[in-house]
């Protein structure tokens, strides 16, 4: 789960990181007061859950309260990568003499938290990683013991030779690690972490993703979820415990298992068409889940055929069959359904579907081909 910068700033500040003060507003009329309270210059920052806000014009500097109001007015309501800006953060601006990058994720190889730092922070950090990887230091951190003193020394020395700055970095690293662990983060970034001309260190941007699996123990974080920044289909899918990503093709897919779902999409492409979505109904799927999946897919007017590809292990094919029939009836679905059901209770499912309009397929390949054929014909 992604959370807004303003919430990430709050978490960082709580972990002791030096975050400049800021005020969140939703009306441009509030911008002037906020800027006056904070003292100018301020930065006016759109709060949307996508990257590249700066490049899209969603982050502006303002040197007077009047200017802050103007910028807020311009940014509120702006469209950034398909998302409408509904909130703006007015943050105290910091003069920048150096920009560092500091980020954390879990490392799949060592199975431990990994902190990555670079003295070349800012918007081009990915380019730095590609072209000058020696400018990135990766430090594996013991998940329980935390960052060792020798690691803090090494990391500080990698970013700066200035002892007064280095002294402020250890609490930043420790604070970022603490925040990362405390909120069950899957990604935490400060980009940039800056040094101002007076030698003070500031975290002027904040990004935190939360591990969805941990939300059951973080009620406060769950409240930071912003559904308005997401595709409504994806939100609905999540509420039904489905995994859904909208795409652009003609063939809707309902599959059990993420790997098989991707393989199904790949095969649709391989045989010359395009999938309309990724949809994984997961393991033990009830008829209700199939119904919910169908509901989301039929809403897409581009969809000309729906392929149901199920390899039953925990998933019972008869459950799926019943769900399909109910969906067809309840939703009045008139899009052709191609159904491939193999594995647990496949025979029962075959019996259930016999004599219906559903198009049966015995293999995934056959299913894909039939769906493409139907979609092309319509």
């Amino acid at each position, binding site marked *: 789960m992604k959370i807004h910068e303003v919430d990430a700033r709050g978490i960082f500040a709580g972990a002791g990181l030096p975050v400049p003060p800021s005020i969140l507003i939703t009306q441009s009329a509030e911008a002037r007061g906020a800027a006056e309270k904070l003292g100018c210059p301020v930065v006016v920052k759109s709060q949307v859950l996508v990257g590249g806000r700066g490049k899209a014009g969603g982050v502006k500097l303002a040197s007077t309260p009047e200017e802050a109001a103007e910028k807020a007015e311009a940014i509120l309501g702006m469209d950034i990568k398909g998302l409408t800006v509904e909130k703006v953060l007015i943050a105290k601006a910091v003069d920048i003499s150096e920009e560092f990058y500091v980020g954390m994720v879990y490392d799949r190889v060592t199975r431990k938290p990994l902190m990555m730092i670079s003295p070349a922070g800012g918007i081009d950090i990915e380019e730095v990683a590609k072209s000058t990887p020696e400018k990135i230091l990766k430090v594996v951190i013991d998940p329980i013991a935390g960052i060792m003193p020798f690691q803090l020394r090494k990391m500080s020395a990698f970013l700066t030779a200035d002892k007064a700055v280095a002294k402020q970095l250890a609490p930043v690293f420790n604070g970022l690690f603490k925040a990362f662990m405390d909120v069950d983060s899957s990604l935490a970034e400060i980009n940039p972490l800056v040094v101002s001309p007076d030698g003070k260190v500031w975290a002027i941007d904040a990004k935190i993703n939360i591990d969805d699996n941990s939300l059951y123990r973080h009620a406060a974080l769950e409240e930071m979820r912003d559904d308005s920044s997401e595709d409504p289909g994806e939100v609905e899918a999540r509420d039904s415990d489905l995994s859904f990503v909208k795409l652009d093709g003609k063939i809707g897919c309902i599959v059990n298992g993420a790997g098989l779902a991707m393989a199904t999409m790949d095969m649709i492409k391989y045989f010359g068409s*395009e999938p309309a979505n990724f949809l994984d109904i997961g393991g033990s799927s009830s008829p209700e889940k199939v119904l919910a999946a169908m509901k989301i897919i039929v809403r897409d007017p581009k969809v000309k055929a729906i392929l149901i590809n199920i390899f039953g292990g925990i998933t019972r094919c008869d459950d799926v069959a019943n769900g399909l029939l109910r969906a067809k009836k309840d939703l009045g679905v008139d899009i052709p359904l191609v159904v491939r059901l193999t594995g647990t209770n496949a025979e029962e499912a075959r019996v259930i579907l016999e004599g219906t309009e559903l198009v049966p397929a015995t293999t995934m390949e056959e299913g894909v081909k039939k769906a493409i054929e139907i979609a092309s014909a319509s």
Partner: protein
Amino acid sequence: MSILVDKNTRLIVQGITGRDGGFHTSQMVAYGTNVVGGVTPGKGGQKTDDGVPVFNTMEEAVRETGANASVIYVPASFAADAVCEASDAGVGLVVCIAEGIPVKDMVRALPYVRERGTIVVGPNCPGVISPGRSKVGIMPGNIHKEGNVGVVSRSGTLTYEVVYHLTQNGFGQSTCLGIGGDPVIGTNLLDAMALFAEDDETEVVVLIGEIGGNDEEKAAEIIKNGYPKKVAAFIAGRTAPPGKRMGHAGAIVTGGTGTAAEKVAAFKAAGVEVAEIPAEIAEIVSNLL
């Protein structure tokens, strides 16, 4: 031989009195797996419908049954603790089927179990099966067949699909292993490859990868530098949109972007044939054998 599980596997089911645990215990017993006991705290002393004795703790279960492996079906919030309990009780293999476990919990549990020499498969995985000998997990047993193809996969049902084609075409399996799709797992693609490398019975290893991470690229490198088994591969996600990126950090950590194209290219550069669709795996295996 085979890897991880065989006729000598003496299995405890953690969470045996739960809905999933109970159902799959029956399935495993029916397949011939030697399920020697189960654990549910507070329900010790019972027996399941399959006649499997239930214990309160793993320690008791291992002491009473001489178990050497466990499989975990407990709810996500208890699963990491169950992994540690099993390791502490001395089993050498823990297969964690449970899904939805916070990454942090596994990150904390894995060093604990590694210190005690326990191999963990999963979490969020279908399990391990050595056809004809032992099934530890949730995969449908009947699609498998004894043979000399090792299968390791990051996904569940896609593995069944591939195995189904293998079996249909007469290629049995030494062991099929679903390692799970979570970012932090006990046994990764490379660990599984190392196990297959040591297995006399396995002649070909089928690697079923998917987008994300860079284990496939590393596997390709290992193969390039001389891997003792023949390898066939499949990568899911060629059409996946770049989609939800892991911020900058995700790209920095792997060095690449983890796309299917990169993985396919890496395998091809290592001389590994990569199937375009699952059914092709059987053809490739046929050519290799």
